[in-house]
């Protein structure tokens, strides 16, 4: 899946780096580095990161509405 972070908005809260550490990582105190092409199995974690970002800086495709998809992602995993 594809994603992009608006690094003008990003303020280094690092929520994404906790929720999807294979995709997002802090580099120094405040810089974020991320993989713009996350593995498909990261979808649920990325959805949570998108929803949790305090400044809503992450755009990922295939997630319809950040909050909703994080919720439905959880439901899907609970159902499994």
């Amino acid at each position: 899946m594809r994603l992009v972070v608006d690094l003008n908005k990003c303020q280094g809260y690092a929520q994404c780096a906790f929720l999807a550490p294979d995709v997002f990582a802090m580099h120094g105190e405040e810089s974020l580095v991320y993989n713009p092409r996350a593995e498909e199995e990261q979808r649920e974690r990325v959805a949570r990161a998108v929803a949790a970002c305090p400044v809503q800086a992450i755009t990922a495709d295939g997630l319809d509405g950040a909050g909703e998809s994080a919720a439905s992602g959880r439901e899907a995993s609970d159902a499994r």
Partner: protein
Amino acid sequence: MPADYLDWLRREGRIVIVGASLAGLRAAETLRAEGFAGELTLIGDEPYEPYDRPPLSKAVLLGKADPLHTELPRRREIDAKWRLGVPASALDMTAKRVRLADGDEVEYDRLLIATGVRARPWPKEAEAQLDGVFVVRTRGDAAALYRRLKAGPRRVLIIGAGFAGSEIASACREMGLAVTVAERAGGPLVGALGGVIGSVSAELYHENGVDLRTGVMVTGLEGDSVGRVKAAHLSDGSVVETDLVVVSLGSMRNTEWLTGSGLGAGPRGIACDAGCRAFDFRGIVTDDIFVAGDVARSPHALFGYQFLSLEHWGNAVAQAEIAAHNMISPSSDRRPHLWVPAFWSSQFRVNIKSVGVPPMGEQIMITQGSLAERRFVGVYGFQGRIIAAVSFDNTRWLEFYQREIERGAPFPVEYPTVDRRPEGRQPVPADFPDPSLPTHGPTVTLSGYSPTDRQLVFTPAH
């Protein structure tokens, strides 16, 4: 513009976007989001769908991202015809046609130009062709450079210590490679942030083991018998032995294809009004041609109505959205592009961000943190007001300073309750180089008439 024309345009008109990168894509999405139901064509010179460039000098070189997979996520379906891998070669404004390099022609009712910039190549062509000499602009550039860096060159030479050059130098050091950086100005980043901040950046270079040479030019690159670069000659007489050279001398605007079209386009970009409508070469604003992104230059009310050219990611997005909205809106609903310039860079594990237009600054004042700690906010003043701010690892404060810039808050600033430091808070000269001297190229270019500029004298013709 009669309302029925706009209704027709929105329903079944043809909109062509030249430039299929960030600005082009976001404009296409905005057009569809705002109800454009006609035919949409995107023309791009690279044979790839829109991809993101900032990771190419950062995450890619740190091994965190694949250079060939930074494609931008889509905000929505855009149902467009894609003409990729073919550059536009000419514009016929009268016939409303874009000609492509393969001879095809595409007709439009409204046109958006978002052709962006390209890397400025090493000026001596034979030397630029040497094996081991790179620029970094496209994904192919980044892929090739990363491969060579992984192969372990003996020494990397980076020509130009702007943001891109600094980011690449930083990545090289993280890979454990020996790096020399040559910069014509007195320090890194001085074109964009001035000498005070440049000296902090220079300290970062030194601490991280970069061999930084300032106040020098590279006068020539030397190849071996099989055409691989082996050394660079500097203007101070020194020679740097290197097997990998990255030319990081800023960029050039992609406007050549508009030569002779009658549009107000040239090396400084395409002039447009604050509503993104292009000017023709006579200075008359066009009705059907819009501009967005790195290639545009437009007047900004907050900065003395100077024409700003901004090579900023955020500007490409914001201006594309405004241009797209205005393309399909009556004049009463049009919006001005009044985005406050902002950018970021990450180098030597430090997050550098800025808002406003630092190169307009006459003075700088460190208002929070300290230069010695590499964690601070600096505020730039111009004629008694705040014009810009820069932060090193202090991004959460920038929004506050953006509001201060927007309201024209006075400078020098007085924030008596914030972060008092013993070294005092005095404005000092921001120390920007003379803009007429070429450096690595600032990412903001002021290129308009300024009411305060008295260097220009009008001489009437007889």
